[in-house]
């Protein structure tokens, strides 16, 4: 029995060591190198395919052309202006949507009666494809910044609301009971148990809502606007200028990626108690 266990252990260890030896790229630097390599290879292949006329440059664009567009957009500063508009709309939409949604979702915890009353309405609103509201929102809020922010809010707030409400409902009953036995009021339970225990779920929605906020901003710009990456993409595509379309899309991608990284950092800041301690335990 013990021999078997010993044998199993050594074979597991050997296996671990072997797998470690095999995967030289499994480190931060190694992974980054592979990722960059993949991107470079992709663009090279694309460029070659267009030059060899395997692909039609008119229909798919051309990396060198995209680069050319990006350089000229940087030179005349329009890239920063348009990116700035889109980012500003998305951030406002994200922030307001998250705050409004989370606050409503959390407040619903206070009254089970109200919560049950509005639950079907929330489900109904959630099932509407919010993008379909875009024309109405433009009608109401005009063609400026407000309509894009409003569209982003309509997308993000419902996600935050549903998540916050569900997480508040799922908050540990025993922790609430413990606090209640200490004589805590409902408000104290809300502050000390409900809010902190929903925080991880709310932060998890940041990842989704960053994307939704960008969708709201860009779709708003598609429909009617003078600025923004959505505007750039829309105008260029109507002129069959694929290289400019790609330039806008890649910039959007970069913006989304940076937002995502910021969420990771925020999460580590706000949830220090969730950080992995590498499995170490303090023992006295």
């Amino acid at each position: 029995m013990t021999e078997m266990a010993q044998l199993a252990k050594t074979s597991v260890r050997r296996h671990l060591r072997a797998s470690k030896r095999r995967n030289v790229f499994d480190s931060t630097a190694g992974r980054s190198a592979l990722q960059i390599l993949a991107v470079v290879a992709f663009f090279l292949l694309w460029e070659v395919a267009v030059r060899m006329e395997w692909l039609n440059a008119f229909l798919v664009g051309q990396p060198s052309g995209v680069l050319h567009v990006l350089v000229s957009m940087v030179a005349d500063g329009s890239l920063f202006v348009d990116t700035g508009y889109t980012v500003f709309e998305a951030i406002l939409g994200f922030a307001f949507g998250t705050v409004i949604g989370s606050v409503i979702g959390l407040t619903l915890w206070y009254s089970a009666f109200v919560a049950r009353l509005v639950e079907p309405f929330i489900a109904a609103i959630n099932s509407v494809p919010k993008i379909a509201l875009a024309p109405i929102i433009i009608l109401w809020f005009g063609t400026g910044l407000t309509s894009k922010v409003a569209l982003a809010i309509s997308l993000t707030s419902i996600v935050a609301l549903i998540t916050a409400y569900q997480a508040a409902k799922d908050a540990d009953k025993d922790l609430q009971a413990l606090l209640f036995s200490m004589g805590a009021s409902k408000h104290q339970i809300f502050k000390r148990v409900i809010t902190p225990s929903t925080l991880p779920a709310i932060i998890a929605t940041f990842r989704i809502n960053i994307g939704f906020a960008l969708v709201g901003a860009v779709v708003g710009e598609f429909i009617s606007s003078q600025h923004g990456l959505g505007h750039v993409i829309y105008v260029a595509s109507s002129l069959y200028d694929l290289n400019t379309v790609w330039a806008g899309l890649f910039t959007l991608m970069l913006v989304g990626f940076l937002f995502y990284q910021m969420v990771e950092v925020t999460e580590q800041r706000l949830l220090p108690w969730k950080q992995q301690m590498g499995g170490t335990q303090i023992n006295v």
Partner: protein
Amino acid sequence: MSSPKVQLRLNGIRKSFPGKQGPTQVLDGLTFDIHERDFVSIIGPSGCGKTTVFNIIAGLVDPDEGMLMYRGQEVDSLRGKVGYMMQKDLLFPWRTVLDNVLLGLETKGVDPRQAMDTAREYLSTFGLSGFENAYPKMLSGGMRQRVALIRTLVLDPDILLLDEPFSALDYQTRLYLEGILMEAVETFHKTVILVTHDIDEAVALSKRVVVLSQRPARVKAVHDIALNEHSPIAARSDPRFSSYFNTLCAELDIQTRASA
């Protein structure tokens, strides 16, 4: 010896919970007294309603019938007066050790600076200074249970309700924490009600043991434990220890046979 003063009296407590096949009667007219500075253990078969008794005393559950008398007065519950340590340690994962200990003081609205001093003092008394800023997830089971105990004591409650506080620990850690508990009870003059599955623990620590029957639970017997010393190790070596142990085992025999 003068007759001891009653601190808490449970009188005819009944409770049933709704179940799939109609309501299940859990407590069936439970009556017993807790004296001032008493140390009472409640033992009984698993699922007989021991935790429910605590929940009623702490005000988490309302009894269907019966009443609670506290120092001669009828009360709804002892919510806010008890220190309830539940079956799980229930440390708040997002709070550090210090903030966990501060929880009750914050809830009571104690001045933050004073609360901080008290909490630190308790932590150092129980050998946890240096861990104030650790999160519960980094602590061993024994340490977590110690923090939970401190959190309960720091409120200076009239009565401690301890629901199997040490059942998840290894024997050594358990003896150690039992010792800490007994010391704290002596120092702070606390009344303790302890729910335990461990007859050994009940005999070693308690002045009295209340035995509950199978569900629906009634008080089957109350035993005075007259040992010279109620400390985890000395008590276990007292010559009378094993006779108490055997009596209580015999009283729970329905369960031993059923589970054998």
